[in-house]
């Protein structure tokens, strides 16, 4: 039973990470219809920039994450301007290849700047808490709490603020939004910046429990796609439910079936879900 509780908490922490990484992607993919395969490398860059501020510059942990999020938002906007904006009328095949090109570039740059070797980032939050016999580290609790907070803020931003509402407007009706004076270009930049910043927050939180390396985003990239497909494109609640579901499925499968099955479960879930419901679990009417 302790094992189950332990795995439940491990799964929740992992779910928090997945959610934070997934919402950025679901915004970009769902709103702009761009399957950004480079999302994982933005996450990786976010981790390194946080590391830079925390270790090299020496600012406090939370400030380091904040500064890194700003830097990454700029990189996200640049990525949109230089790569995806020129491709706005191209089919998704071209987006995917362009994203792969960007991925190659970012990884090589990270390796050139920080080296190929692993880096460790210490977080000021340390220690454990025992919950129902399970050992849970404070860092993991912070991950879950931050995930919930950020998701709440984001929902508020999209529903209530002017800038956020433009995102939702574009998602719902592109032509209509342009008619009422919303600039798709602006929204595009906003979405990319936001997505990159969110990925950075995820990375800054996870880095202390794992390691930094130029390839740290690779594995996450594919899983995050699984999550947003599971949740339905562009759906925030979907991404949240998807993130936690997938993390728990992964942890529990590894525990009660085998580690290899745990690695593959994300993809088995996609295949099963799409085989039954070809447009995802929480599909909305999608504009073409």
């Amino acid at each position, binding site marked *: 039973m302790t094992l189950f509780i332990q795995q439940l908490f491990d799964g929740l922490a992992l779910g928090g990470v997945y959610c934070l990484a997934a919402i950025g992607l679901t915004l970009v*993919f769902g709103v702009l*219809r761009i*399957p950004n395969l480079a999302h994982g490398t933005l996450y990786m860059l976010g981790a390194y920039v946080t590391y830079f501020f925390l270790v090299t510059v020496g600012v406090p942990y939370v400030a380091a994450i904040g500064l890194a999020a700003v830097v990454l938002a700029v990189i996200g906007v640049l990525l949109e301007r*230089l*790569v995806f904006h*020129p*491709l706005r*009328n*191209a*089919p*998704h*095949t*071209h987006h*995917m*290849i*362009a994203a*792969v*090109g*960007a*991925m*190659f*570039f*970012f*990884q*090589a*740059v990270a*390796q*050139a700047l920080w080296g*190929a070797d692993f880096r460790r980032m210490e977080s000021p939050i340390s220690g454990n808490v025992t919950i129902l016999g399970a050992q849970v580290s404070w860092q993991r609790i912070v991950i879950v709490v931050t995930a919930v907070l950020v998701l709440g803020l984001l929902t508020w931003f999209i529903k209530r603020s002017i800038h956020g509402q433009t995102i939702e407007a574009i998602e719902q009706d592109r032509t209509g939004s342009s008619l009422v004076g919303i600039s798709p270009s602006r929204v595009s930049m906003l979405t990319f910046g936001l997505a990159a910043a969110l990925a950075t927050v995820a990375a800054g939180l996870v880095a202390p429990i794992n390691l930094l390396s130029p390839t740290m985003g690779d594995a996450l990239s*594919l899983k995050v*796609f*699984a999550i947003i*497909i599971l949740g339905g*494109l562009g759906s925030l609640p979907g991404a949240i439910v998807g993130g936690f579901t997938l993390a728990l499925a992964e942890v529990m499968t590894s525990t009660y079936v085998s580690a*290899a099955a745990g*690695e*593959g479960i*994300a*993809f*088995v879930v*996609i*295949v099963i879900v*799409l*085989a039954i419901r*070809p*447009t*995802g679990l929480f599909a909305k009417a999608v504009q073409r």
Partner: protein
Amino acid sequence: MTTNVSPQRLGTLLVALALLLAPLALTGQDYVLRVLTVGATYAIAVYGMNMILGLTGQLSLAHGGFFGIGVYLVGLLTTDYDWAFWPALLVAVVGTTVVGYVAGVVALRTREEYFAIFTMAMGFIIFLVISRWESVTHAHSGVSGVKYPESLGLLDFSDPMLMYYLVLLFLLGAGYVTYAVRRSGVGRTLIAIRTSEDLARSVGVNVGLNKQLAFAASSTFAGLGGGLFAAVQGFVGPSAASVDLTFEMLMFILVGGMGTVMGPVVGTFLVLFLFEFFQDFEAYRFIVVGPIIVALVIFAPRGIVGYLNAFAGHRRSRGPAGGNETGNRSENRVPDTTTEAKETL
């Protein structure tokens, strides 16, 4: 251009000649020959991708996985089960076709991005099975000692040059099939599906069945390429089935030109040599290669062959009316992917 030889024909002829004569110019350069041979096995698989993506417009990301199934069928059958190469290759081709057909039944229920992600997941599952099912595939240890094709008469395929010509022969076959399909009613049907599934359905095309067949055919090519790849390499590991490979192939076809007959060959060899060339920069090469890929996608989205075709077509339409126009005018109006020239090369 006042001759009857169209630029496209000339180009095709040149590429074919270059490939045929390459080994003679490269005596003693087994390394370049190796890159060419491996490239040709990839190019065969890329023809498969061309069938489902270029002609039918469905982005299948399971292609590297199907290639891997071909690789491992030949690899395992000729070593652990001591089969001869030719029956193993036959099983690899038939096997991947069947797997492709069955997978297509489910996969093709989904559309567009969902189809891409679905097939990517499938590709990843294939990779996981190959890289973790130790008792059958030897997982990460790989398979060594894959047999060369048994000699046919006087032809001994352990000679790299003959192996190259053998692969080239299959490549030629793949190119011809693509050419024939494009000219046939089947090709027009597939292109109609690519243009608009709903429209195709409304004029009575059996969209489901045709997509199904295109998908199966695409995995046939992947299996064939994979089977030959195993024999060329002699040793194969799970990286021959990885998702990265799918994206590499996608890059080949995009650079070459989707939906064209020559695109897969041109794209594959060009990108592979680009990769080899930039090897000298070691780890830093991707700082250059990455932006080149992005630039190609942005500035030459139809691929090199697509671009040259359009260029040639454009010139001809202003000059004396060119010979055999096979029609397909409708596709020229597709704002979407590749606007091919009128001739189907």
